[in-house]
C-alpha cells in the first residue's frame, strides 16, 4: 500500500488538526506574492478557497464555466448547513457531529478528516455571520436551528429554503473583495480542458474560452480542483445542466486516483419524473421532512384507484394510510437518513403502492403539521376554542413562512397546490460522495494538485447526511486547504514564475485541440444529448438504487459499446472558434462515458451494501434488521482508489484501509 499514504497525523483525534497546524511549514507573506494558485470552480469550496488564498497573499486565478462565480450550483442547496454550536442546548458537540457523520456515512469515511470537519464547523457560522449572511433568527435575535435526517439534535443553520444561495453569495462577496483588489483574476465562461504536469507536479491547466473558442494556457505553482460532483452521469439528476466530471476526470487520466465512484446519493424527496422531455429533476429540501409525513395507501386497491384518478389522497382515512417510515423506523421516523428513506420509497413503489401514473411516487403530507401549528398559533393569539377553518388558516401561514419558496416551486412544476393536497415525491440522483482521492492535506496523488468540496471523496463515506455538503465545501475552502497548501508551497518560494512555453503545455494544448477538431469535423448522425440520455438510462436501471452483479456486468459492457458508438456517430454542429454549447457538452459527455463504466466496475467489486450503495446480494435475511442493507466490515472497510490505465475496465484498484479508533463499528440502525 505504499502508493496510498493518507498522511493522517499521529496523536489523539481531538488534537490532530491543532497540532498538525502547529507543525506544518508556512510561506512568509512576502513570498506568497510570488506564488500563483489556480482554482477550478467557484462554488462553496472553490469560491471560499479562492477568496481565502487571495487574502493570505497568493495570486489566484479562478475559473468558472458559468457567466459569474455566483451561479455555481452550490447556489441551489436549500435546507441548511450543520455546525456543532450546541446553541439549542440539546447535547450537541464536536464529537457528536463527528459521530453522526461517520455513522451516517455507514463507516466508510476517513475518521480524521471527519473529526476536523466537525471541529471547524462552528467557525463557518461565525465567519458567515461576519460576512453578512442573513441566517434565520428567532425573536430574541439569536440564530435559529432545525433538524435534518439521521441526527437527534437541532444543529442545522438556515436561510429560508435558500441556504446554499446565501452561503455562496457570502463566498462570492469575499471573492469580489479580492477581485477588486486584483488578487483574484476571474475567468468566467472558461472550461478547464486538461491539467499540465511538469516534472510530475501540477503546474497549470489548459482552458477553452466558451465565448470565443480560444484555447489558453495558464500556469501556477498549484492547481485546486473544486468542480463539484458527477451526478449528471445519470443524465437526470438535481445537478445543474452544466455540472460535469471533466476537471476531475482529466486529472484522473493524468494520475489522480478516483475513489469510490459508486457512492452516489439518491435523494428521497424530489419531484417525480413527468415525461421523456425532462431535462433535470428538482429537489424538495429534506427540511420538509421536519414537518411532512411520508405515506402510501395501505391497500393495493386504493393505490390503484389513485393512479387511475378514481380516488384522491385526501379521500383516504388515517387507517387507510401506511406511514411506512414511521412504521419501520420508530426512533427516527420521517427523519431517517437519505439512503434509507430512498430505498424505503422504492420498496413500496416496487410492491405496487406508488401513487402517480408511472407508479413511482409517494406522498409527503403537511396536513398534520398545518393542524399542529394552527392550534399552537390560535393559543398564542388567545383563542382556546378555534374553529377548524381558523386552525387551517393559521397553520398554513406558519408552513408558508417556513417553506413558502419550496411550495411555490412545487406548484409551478406540478400544477398542484401542496397546501391542500399532499406533495408527490420520488428519489432522484443528487450528490456524489465518491470523487478524487485526497490525503489529509486534500492533495490528490498528483503532487501540487488538490481537490476540495464535492469533487473529492473524503468526508461523507457511503452516504452524506443532510446539510453536510455546505459544511464540507466551506470547511475545505475557508479553513483546511489554505493551511495545508502552504506546507506544499513552502518548497516553491524560489521556483519563480512557471513558463507556459514549456513543452508540457504545448503537448497538452495540442491534444485538447485535436479532440475539439475531431468533434466539429466528425460526420456523425446523433446529437450529444442522444448519447447522454442513453447513458443515463443504463446508469439508472442497472447502477441505480439497487444493484446486482449481473446488472453491473451488463452495464459495463453496454457503456463501453455506447462509448464506441459515440466516437463514431456523435454530431456536433457549429465551429470550434465560436460560442458552441454542443461542443462543450460533447467533451463532458465523452468523460461521463468513461466514468460511467468505472462507476459500474466499482459497484461490482464492492460486494457489500453500504450507504447509498445497495447490493441486492447483500441484505439482512433475518432478525430485526431483515431486508435492511448488510455491510461487510471484514472484507470491505476500505476506500477503493482507482488508478487510470487507459480503458476504464483496466483501472487498477488500490485500497486505503479505514481504521476506526474513536468510533466502534456497529450495524447502522435507525429503528
Amino acid at each position: 500500500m505504499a502508493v496510498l499514504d493518507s498522511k493522517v497525523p499521529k496523536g489523539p483525534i481531538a488534537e490532530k488538526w491543532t497540532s498538525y497546524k502547529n507543525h506544518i511549514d508556512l510561506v512568509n507573506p512576502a513570498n506568497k506574492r510570488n506564488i500563483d494558485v489556480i482554482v477550478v470552480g467557484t462554488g462553496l469550496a472553490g469560491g471560499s478557497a479562492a477568496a481565502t488564498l487571495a487574502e493570505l497573499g497568493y495570486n489566484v486565478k479562478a475559473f468558472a464555466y458559468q457567466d459569474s462565480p455566483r451561479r455555481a450550483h452550490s447556489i441551489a442547496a436549500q435546507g441548511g448547513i450543520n455546525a456543532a454550536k450546541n446553541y439549542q442546548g440539546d447535547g450537541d458537540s464536536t464529537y457528536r457531529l463527528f459521530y453522526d457523520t461517520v455513522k451516517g456515512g455507514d463507516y466508510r469515511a476517513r475518521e480524521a478528516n471527519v473529526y476536523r470537519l466537525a471541529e471547524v464547523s462552528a467557525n463557518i457560522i461565525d465567519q458567515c455571520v461576519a460576512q453578512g449572511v442573513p441566517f434565520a433568527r428567532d425573536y430574541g435575535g439569536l440564530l435559529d436551528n432545525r433538524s435534518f435526517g439521521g441526527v437527534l439534535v437541532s444543529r442545522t443553520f438556515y436561510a429560508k429554503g435558500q441556504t446554499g444561495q446565501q452561503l455562496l453569495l457570502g463566498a462570492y462577496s469575499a471573492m469580489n473583495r479580492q477581485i477588486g483588489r486584483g488578487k483574484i483574476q476571474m475567468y468566467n465562461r472558461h472550461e478547464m480542458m486538461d491539467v499540465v504536469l511538469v516534472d510530475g507536479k501540477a503546474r497549470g491547466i489548459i482552458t477553452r474560452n466558451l465565448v470565443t473558442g480560444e484555447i489558453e494556457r495558464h500556469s501556477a505553482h498549484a492547481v485546486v480542483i473544486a468542480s463539484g460532483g458527477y451526478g449528471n452521469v445519470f443524465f437526470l439528476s438535481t445537478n445543474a445542466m452544466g455540472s460535469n466530471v471533466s476537471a476531475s476526470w482529466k486529472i484522473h487520466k493524468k494520475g489522480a486516483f478516483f475513489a469510490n465512484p459508486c457512492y452516489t446519493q439518491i435523494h428521497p424527496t424530489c419531484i417525480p419524473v413527468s415525461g421523456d422531455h425532462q431535462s433535470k429533476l428538482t429537489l424538495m429540501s429534506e427540511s420538509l421532512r421536519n414537518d411532512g409525513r411520508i405515506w402510501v395507501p395501505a391497500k393495493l386497491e386504493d393505490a390503484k384507484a389513485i393512479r387511475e384518478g378514481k380516488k384522491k389522497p385526501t379521500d383516504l382515512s388515517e387507517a387507510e394510510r401506511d406511514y411506512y417510515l414511521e412504521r419501520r423506523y420508530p426512533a427516527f421516523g420521517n427523519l431517517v437518513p437519505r439512503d434509507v428513506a430512498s430505498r424505503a420509497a422504492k420498496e413500496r413503489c416496487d410492491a405496487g403502492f406508488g401513487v402517480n401514473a408511472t407508479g413511482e411516487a409517494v406522498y409527503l403530507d403537511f396536513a398534520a403539521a398545518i393542524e399542529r401549528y394552527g392550534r399552537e398559533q390560535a393559543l398564542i393569539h388567545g383563542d382556546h376554542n378555534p374553529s377548524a377553518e381558523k386552525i387551517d388558516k393559521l397553520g398554513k401561514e406558519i408552513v408558508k413562512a417556513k417553506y413558502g419558496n419550496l411550495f411555490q416551486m412545487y406548484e409551478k412544476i406540478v400544477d398542484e397546490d401542496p397546501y391542500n393536497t399532499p406533495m408527490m415525491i420520488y428519489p432522484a440522483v443528487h450528490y456524489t460522495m465518491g470523487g478524487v482521492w485526497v490525503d489529509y492535506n486534500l492533495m490528490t496523488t498528483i503532487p501540487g494538485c488538490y481537490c476540495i468540496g464535492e469533487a473529492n471523496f473524503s468526508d461523507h463515506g457511503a452516504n452524506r447526511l443532510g446539510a453536510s455538503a455546505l459544511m464540507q465545501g466551506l470547511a475545505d475552502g475557508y479553513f483546511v486547504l489554505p493551511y495545508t497548501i502552504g506546507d506544499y508551497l513552502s518548497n516553491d518560494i524560489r521556483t519563480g514564475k512557471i513558463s507556459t512555453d514549456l513543452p508540457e503545455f504545448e503537448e497538452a494544448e495540442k491534444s485538447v485541440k485535436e479532440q475539439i477538431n475531431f468533434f466539429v469535423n466528425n460526420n456523425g448522425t446523433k446529437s450529444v444529448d442522444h448519447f447522454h440520455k442513453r447513458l443515463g438510462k443504463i446508469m439508472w436501471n442497472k447502477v441505480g438504487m439497487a444493484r446486482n452483479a449481473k446488472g453491473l456486468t451488463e452495464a459495463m459492457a453496454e457503456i463501453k459499446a455506447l462509448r464506441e458508438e459515440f466516437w463514431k456517430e456523435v454530431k456536433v454542429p457549429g465551429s470550434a472558434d465560436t460560442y458552441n454549447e454542443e461542443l462543450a457538452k460533447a467533451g463532458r459527455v465523452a468523460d461521463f462515458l468513461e466514468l460511467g463504466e468505472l462507476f459500474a466496475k466499482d459497484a461490482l467489486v464492492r460486494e457489500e451494501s453500504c450507504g447509498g450503495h445497495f447490493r441486492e446480494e447483500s441484505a439482512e435475511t433475518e432478525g430485526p434488521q431483515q431486508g435492511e442493507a448488510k455491510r461487510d466490515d471484514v472484507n470491505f472497510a476500505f476506500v477503493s482508489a482507482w488508478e487510470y490505465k487507459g480503458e476504464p475496465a483496466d483501472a487498477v484498484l488500490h485500497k486505503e484501509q479505514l481504521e476506526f479508533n474513536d468510533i466502534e463499528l456497529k450495524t447502522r440502525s435507525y429503528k
Partner: protein
Amino acid sequence: MKLTLKIWRQKDANDKGQMVDYKINDVSPDMSFLEMLDVLNEQIINEGGEPVAFDHDCREGICGMCSLFINGEAHGPDRGITTCQLHMRKFKDGDTIYIEPFRAKAFPVIKDLVVDRSAFDRIQHQGGFISVNTSGNTQDANSLPISKHAADEAMDAATCIGCGACVATCKNSSAMLFVGAKVSQYALLPQGQVEAADRVRNMVAQMDAEGFGNCTNTGACEVECPKGISLDNIARMNREFFKANI
C-alpha cells in the same frame, strides 16, 4: 401543442441579428419553456442547422443564468419565476411566441439569446462585500443579536439572483433594483454599517460607469422580478446614498 416561435438569431456581438421563424409540434404542457427549446434544438441539429444559444444552468430558478424576453416580458408571462420555471401550460395550442434576449446597452449580446451580464459583477467588485477576512477568528455568531425583522428584511433583499430581468424590463435600463438589493442587505445589518458610506458611493459610481440608466419610479422591475425584490430597496439605496454624501 403546435407552436410558432419567432426567435432572435445573432451570430456574434458584431452581427446585426434578426428574428427567425420556427415551427414546433408535439409540445407537452408539462414541459418547461427551456425543455421546449431543447426539443427545438434537437430538431434543428437533426435538420443540419445550428442550435439556438441560450443561457441556462440550474433549471430550478435560483442560479440566475437563464434570461429571455418572451412575448415582451422578462422571464415570460407568469409571475414570480424565472424562464426555467415557466411551463408550457401557460401557452395555448397554435400560439406564436416571440423570444428575444434581455436587451440593454450594458448587456451586449454574445450570441442569439445569450448576453454579457458581467457589468453586474463589476458593480459587486466595488463594494458588494463586508471587509472581513476568512480567518476563523471572528467573534461567536450569537454575540451579535440581530432583530428577526431586520434579518428577515435583509434576507428578502439578499434573495436577488442577479438575472438582470429588472434591467431588461426597465425603459431606462436601470440597474437600481439590483444594486439597491445588495446595498439594502448590508444596510439592514449591523455588520454592514462600518463601510456603508463607501459601499453605496462606489457601487453607484460603477453602476453609472457601466451605462445603466436611472430610476424614474415606473416599478416595472418589481413586477417582473422573479424573486419579488421590492422597490423599497431602491428607496433605501437612495437614502443611503444621500446619507453618504452629506
